[in-house]
């Protein structure tokens, strides 16, 4: 049973001021937090620790009485991560409590080396654990921030464009990972439905490399589109990628491929019953065409 709680309670104000001095002497990010706020944060944490330690248990921090301390530390860590503190700076907030604590303990228990050692050890392990907790919470917040940013970037980089009535295209740029390909897939399929498109062109001109996993994802997307009633054309396959595909033994037998986006578009137009006709403007009277086709009539057909 640790007597740390009593000790903390008795020496609260001195501990706090010593701790503040420690912190102010170390790396002090005044640009991110002013002294008054730091003082408040430190005081509240110290009080919480004192309260929790009253049960006599300072080794098992998963127990109920330590929940307020854990929550408080998680909040502090989390907000510091968002504010721009580094993980060490955040951990030091907790670790810097050691020195003042040990100093006071030594003064207080000078005559009782046995107890001094025990309580110092308790205090040491306690602060280590609190420090680790702080770092973990910090990391978690950072990871969440990164995940959110990645998601936002993902949304920006996978636009699906309508090329013509009934034809959509998705120009993929950059490396495709599992996560991104999933987003691409869902985006393409929902756009197919929304625009009522029978043909979808997946252009991979901007994709530097394709591995088995990416190829599998693309194939899944194409199969899913087919199940829904739309056809996919894969275009922009660079020679190196064609080689990789063959080497990896990926079977593209059921997939229509075109070397360029232009070829894919031509095929897509054909599949949707459209045709592109050259208009010779040089030698025709207004309203007349060389091949005898009525321009207005053709324009109406094209827009259909």
């Amino acid at each position, binding site marked *: 049973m640790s007597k740390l709680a009593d000790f903390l309670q008795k020496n609260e104000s001195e501990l706090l001021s010593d701790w503040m001095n420690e912190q102010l002497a170390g790396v002090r990010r005044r640009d991110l937090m002013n002294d008054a706020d730091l003082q408040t944060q430190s005081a509240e944490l110290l009080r919480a620790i004192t309260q929790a330690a009253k049960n006599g248990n300072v080794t098992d921090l998963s127990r109920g009485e330590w929940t307020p301390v854990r929550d408080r530390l998680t909040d502090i860590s989390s907000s510091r991560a968002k504010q721009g503190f580094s993980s060490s700076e955040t951990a030091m907030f907790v670790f810097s409590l050691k020195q003042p604590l040990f100093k006071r303990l030594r003064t207080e228990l000078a005559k009782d080396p046995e107890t001094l050692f025990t309580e110092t050890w308790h205090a040491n392990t306690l602060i280590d654990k609190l420090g680790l907790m702080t770092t973990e919470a910090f990391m978690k917040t950072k990871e969440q921030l990164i995940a959110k940013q990645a998601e936002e970037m993902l949304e920006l980089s996978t636009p699906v464009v309508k090329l013509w009535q009934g034809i959509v295209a998705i120009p993929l740029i950059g490396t495709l990972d599992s996560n991104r390909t999933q987003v691409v*897939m*869902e985006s393409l*399929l*929902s756009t*197919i*439905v929304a625009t*009522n*498109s*029978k043909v979808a062109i997946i252009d991979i001109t901007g994709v530097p490399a394709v591995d088995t996993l990416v190829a599998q994802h693309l194939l*899944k997307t194409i*199969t*899913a*589109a*087919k*199940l*829904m*009633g*739309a056809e996919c054309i894969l275009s922009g396959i660079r020679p190196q990628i064609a080689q990789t595909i063959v080497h990896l033994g990926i079977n593209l037998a059921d997939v229509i491929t075109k070397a360029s986006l232009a070829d894919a578009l031509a095929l897509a137009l054909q599949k949707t019953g459209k045709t592109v006709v050259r208009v010779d403007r040089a030698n025709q009277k207004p309203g007349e065409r060389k091949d005898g086709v009525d321009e207005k009539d053709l324009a109406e057909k094209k827009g259909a």
Partner: protein
Amino acid sequence: MDRIPILRMGNFLLVTIQVDMHDQLALTLQDDLTSAISKNGSRGVLIDISSLEIVDSFIGRMLANISAMARILDAQTVLVGMQPAVAITLVELGMAMPGVKTALNVEAGMELLRELVKAHHLETGDDDDSQN
């Protein structure tokens, strides 16, 4: 017992599946459709699954079976309106449903059905007067 209604449109049959089917209901549909094709001499079947949020391997197999059975009875089948999430899940499950024709919606489905029936008649030299 509840059944899924089958509508007749000239030479075609139209089925709209809107409920979360339990196995028995699905099998009943299979029976009802094959009977209806036979009884009406239908040339085409349009199955609208745009309201189906879940298609598992059982339902998938049932749909593929209907398509196969219809073909034996000289009718073409088109499945329309599959939701993206359903398509993605079916592919992940490994059900590619080869041999099943699909279209984005009822309109595109009817168009496809007409084309298929026409092509089939040309192929099989059928000079039966099929109005649709």
